[in-house]
């Protein structure tokens, strides 16, 4: 961070020029447009312009019945599709008071955690590629292929899932799924050693990421930052622990927290989170009960009038569904609170004073998925 002279950030004079980072750019993850005002290589002000992939999911929700909104949920954040599916089903089940059988809850947790691992693999490796190391990106995708193959066997999709239903899940998992998952977890644990050798202990990577893009704790609180970006700044907040849902209270796992708040801290938090997810999956596989996978619910559900807010933890932070029902089969209003929306806004506060190269590193470490912002 440099001490920059106070230049009125709306003035473009001979020194300050405007640079458009995006929307077409190899390293803004998705169609993100960052309007930078620069003085040489130093950023004076940063203004994210979003809305390039706005598809109107919330309006679509008012034109469909409750069941028909389910495929929309996984398109909002395509990397955590299963987690969003689960969240929506649990929100509606909460409002209607539907009891989900235990086997279904365990299956939901296992598939969601696998989805979290695959999302982190992509997020971390794309960030590392932005810093310049191209090779770990492909190693991460190799691991991700295994997860996608495992999930495809049981859900039928690789990226945009529609696997959960009100009251449970669609298909049952079999022994081969469990064996494949265990093999994958062993394999990934071995790969972590390679990743640490190649990335974490690399002197150039350390110099690029230590002390860069620091989010102070107060700023994180004011802006509503959640997820690994918050846990890298010292706040131990994870919806799975603070506001437990589903069968998470029955599992033993920790929340990795780092105090520094810089890019390296967020990277380490994500790597440690993958390890914790693997622990959860192992415990869930060990304790998987028998039983039905779906409760008996009517074909078209009629929730009672009222509203409900349900929060859960996706790979990027705390997601919330605020659903308003007027007693009919069509939702009255569904609002999706997405973590990337708040996480991206924090950049306007922390980017000024940094170099362009640090901008890219910070943007990659916050791990935004732009369709989640735009909905």
């Amino acid at each position, binding site marked *: 961070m440099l001490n920059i002279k106070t230049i009125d950030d709306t003035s473009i004079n001979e020194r300050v020029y405007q640079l458009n980072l995006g929307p077409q750019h190899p390293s803004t993850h998705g169609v993100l447009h960052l309007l930078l005002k620069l003085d040489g*290589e130093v950023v004076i002000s940063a203004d994210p312009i979003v809305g390039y992939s706005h598809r109107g999911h919330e309006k679509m929700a008012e034109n469909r019945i409750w069941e028909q909104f389910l495929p929309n949920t996984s398109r909002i954040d395509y990397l955590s599709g299963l987690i969003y599916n689960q969240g929506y089903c649990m929100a509606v089940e909460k409002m209607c008071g539907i009891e989900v059988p235990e086997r279904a809850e365990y299956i939901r947790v296992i598939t969601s955690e696998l989805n979290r691992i695959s999302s982190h693999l992509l997020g971390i490796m794309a960030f590392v590629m932005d810093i*310049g190391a191209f090779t770990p990106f492909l*190693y991460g995708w190799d691991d991700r292929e295994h997860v996608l193959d495992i999930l495809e066997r049981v859900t039928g999709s690789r990226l945009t899932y529609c696997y959960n239903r009100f009251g449970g899940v669609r298909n049952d998992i079999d022994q081969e799924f469990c064996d494949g998952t265990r093999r994958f977890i062993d394999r990934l644990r071995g790969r972590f050693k390679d990743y640490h050798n190649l990335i974490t202990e690399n002197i150039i990577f350390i*110099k690029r990421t230590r002390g860069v893009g620091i989010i102070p704790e107060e700023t994180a609180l004011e802006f509503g930052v959640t997820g690994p970006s918050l846990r890298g700044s010292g706040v131990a907040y994870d919806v799975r622990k603070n506001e437990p849902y589903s069968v998470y209270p029955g599992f033993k796992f920790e929340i990795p927290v780092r105090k520094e708040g810089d890019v390296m801290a967020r990277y380490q938090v994500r790597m440690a989170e993958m390890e914790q997810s693997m622990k959860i999956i192992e415990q869930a596989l060990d304790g998987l009960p028998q039983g039905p996978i779906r409760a008996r619910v009517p074909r078209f559900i009629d929730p009672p009038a009222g509203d409900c807010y349900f929060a859960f933890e996706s790979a990027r932070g705390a997601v919330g569904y605020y659903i308003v029902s007027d007693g009919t089969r069509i939702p009255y209003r569904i609002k999706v609170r997405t973590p990337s929306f708040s996480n991206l806004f924090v950049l306007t506060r922390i980017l000024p004073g940094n170099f362009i*190269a640090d901008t890219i590193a910070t943007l990659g470490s916050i791990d935004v998925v732009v369709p989640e912002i735009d909905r």
Partner: protein
Amino acid sequence: MNINQLPFINEIYGFLGRDLVAAVIGILIILVFVPLNSAFLVWVERKVAGHIQLRPGPMEVGPHGILQTLVDAVKLMSKEMITPKLADKFLFWLAPIIIIIPAIVCFVVIPFSPIMQVREMNVGILLIFSFSSLTVLSILMGGWASNNKYALIGAVRAVAQNVAYEIPLLLSTMSIIIMTNSFKMSEITAAQSTVWFIVYQPVAAIIFFISTTAETNRAPFDLVEAESELVSGFHTEYTGMRFALFFLAEYTNMFIAASMGAVLFFGGWHGPFFPGLIWFVIKVYVLIFVIIWVRWTFPRLRFDQLMNFAWKFMIPVAMLNLMITAVLLKVL
């Protein structure tokens, strides 16, 4: 006034004849060798990168994809060479030409074998250094003339980086030159008939390699054309054959840098059993392989870290090395 009294007339007469024919044949061979070498190196880079990244690289065109570069060259030649509307047309056209011609000229003094050197010059090493510095001029022209902010940032970074890393490059080469008292590439090679200079000057070798990686704008010093930040740096706006010339120049510069390294530190064409040419080519390609390997392993340095590294670390170490060499040569 007799024609025999004109200045340099004896030298000119001496050059015409056998020397001229040798020079012309040599340049023709170089003009054939340079594109073939670049094409081969592009394929080598893609295969090496692929195998490091757990994938096979190009496999479709020809056996193991060996004709891939040829097909890519045909594709690039068939593309439209677009000039942006507000670009500086003359400089925009000139930049790719200026980057490739000095690179080809540098081949004139490289000793491929005891008998294969196009022209023996008293200032061989200086010639190579001065001509490869012209690439900076071309990058600046290309970046400025493109009328594109990304290109300009890339060009500005390139100028600063190249200027900064020239100095340790020259200082480490000087350590070798004061050992052999000559700028001639063939004499430096001949002086290594018993022991390679890397044994005497390991520090200078390391500094030399880091500096040439920075001079040729290869990773981890490739901020100039950092894909993930500046789209393509100074050659963002270049299309078609002009882009191909930049590409060609990059691999030619890599070859020149590696052959300098082979001549200065690894004994040039010396080696048992095989003829000199084969040893020279082997050494050069091993060094190029190391450069490619480094590119796909390390992330890239941020710009201020890069400059700090050059000015605060490399230059003092190179100067210290030079002084110690000079003292030791005087003493021993």
